[in-house]
């Protein structure tokens, strides 16, 4: 859906989505890195299970909710990526203990 412009010379950051490695860039938000990864990163809502992707990318819509390093329901658009970060795509309500 998105590609990186040739303007982008930032260093790569390796992170994992549901166990699979993806290449992000330093300074990406988690949500941007996920959208750039080309993977199916649709979450399922806690209300009806409907599929969603990030909508506003500025911290207001909460459609980018994602589990980051074991913590559920984080706003992926507000969290910068870090090396080795573990991402899980959420399906439905936040799990107990996450």
């Amino acid at each position, binding site marked *: *859906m*998105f*590609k*990186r*412009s*040739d*303007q*982008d*010379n*930032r260093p790569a950051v390796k992170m994992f989505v549901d166990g699979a490695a993806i290449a992000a*860039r330093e*300074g*990406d*938000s988690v949500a*941007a*890195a996920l*959208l*750039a990864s080309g993977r199916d990163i*649709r979450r399922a*809502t806690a*209300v*009806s299970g*409907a*599929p*969603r*992707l*990030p*909508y*506003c*990318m*500025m*911290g*207001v*819509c*909460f*459609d980018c*909710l994602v589990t980051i390093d074991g913590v559920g*329901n984080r706003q992926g*658009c*507000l969290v*910068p990526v870090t090396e080795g970060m573990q991402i899980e795509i959420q399906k439905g309500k936040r799990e107990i203990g996450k």
Partner: protein
Amino acid sequence: MTTMPKRDSYDVVVIGAGPAGLAAAATTAEAGLSTLVLDENVGPGGQVWRAITSTPVVARDRLGADYWAGAELVQELRASGAEIIQQATVWSLDRHLEIAISAGGASAFVKARRVILATGALERPFPIPGWTLPGVMTAGAAQTMLKSSALVPDAPTVIAGQGPLLWLLAAQILRLGGRIDCILDTTERRNYLAALPHALGFVTSPYFTKGLAMMREVKAKVRVVSGVSELAALGDSQLASVSYVSRGRRETIPAELLLLHQGVVPNVNLAMSAGIEHRWDDRQLCWSPVLDPDGNTSVAGIAIAGDGAGIGGASVAVARGRIAARGAVEVLAPDAAAALTAENVLRTTLAQAERGRAFLDVLFRPAPQFRIPSGDTVVCRCEEVTAKDILDAVAIGATGPNQLKAYRRTGMGPCQGRLCGLTVTELMAQARGKSPEEIGYYRLRAPVKPITLAELASVPKTEADVKAVARQ
């Protein structure tokens, strides 16, 4: 950069580091007032100058001169001595000017003698059928990705809506080699006539030449359909196509990405939760705070500058930021005020920056069909409540947004009404034959952004507080 405030009280706390916040904080700090800037993003700049200190898009012509203007102001702020905390979410502000901050998973409280709210704007809800489908995003979202990460669309992409930002985004995407298949312009034809009386202000404003040039640049490369109505996003669990009517004919374009935009509106949550009086702005079709010429609100000590005070754009925001800051300096350090830019100069700058706004407001006034949905179209994205659900609730007695919550849970999800509030007000107003002012808005309360229970639990409390809670 610190993660928590160094002190527990400041002369001035500025909330938001966009154009207004940067200008306000630089001004008060330069005048010698202890100044704290709190901003939710990774870096300063707000939305319009997002990633101004870190963008990978280094070729200056790609994002344009207006974008790079922000770099200077960031420099000014950094040199001013103001304390700046990024990734700090303000989750509460009250009438005593006490501010609750969440940063790095912990909360801190600071007191201010003056607060300048510069929380900016967010995109107006664009509730068309299918707008919750994966692949439908705001134009601002695409612009954020472009500025922060140099990401541009490369799948079949449609941009739909109206307003200056839409054309700017299209130009930026094209300059960076991104893909746009079609632009669907939803501007109502009758708006051109309605805007005519304001045309003089517009053609003498900087918007005019810049805007025309940008539209020419985009139209040379992308098909533009004007007079679009009955817009819908179609697809099963993912966007597959965009459907619309133009010149009486329904058309469908395959698309994987639909970027929507119909202007921006003040981000009112924090201000409203502090009890600041707002009124319905019939021209900008949104809630705006009631302000005096210096930006002072109905709550003593709190001023609002920037788009949160009513949409005006970046230059207006900077001017309002300086004016609000000057107001704070005049009260807290009158001797320092003499060294600041004179008030009449600031007001002239503001008036110049405001030129052309009336024209844009009228020309790009979103059509009722794109503001007031019907049937199964989702209004509240968090709780997944449709227009029909809301009308059903009105039929059994819901009078306003707060009773509607009781009937249908609208606005009770994590976004706290930011994506449905305006739609709910206008939809109920139409259904009940009342004005939006009469219908009102959600009663907002802290926390205006979610914080963890552990963080809330760590807030200092007295024996009496504990006693008010524990039961026999």
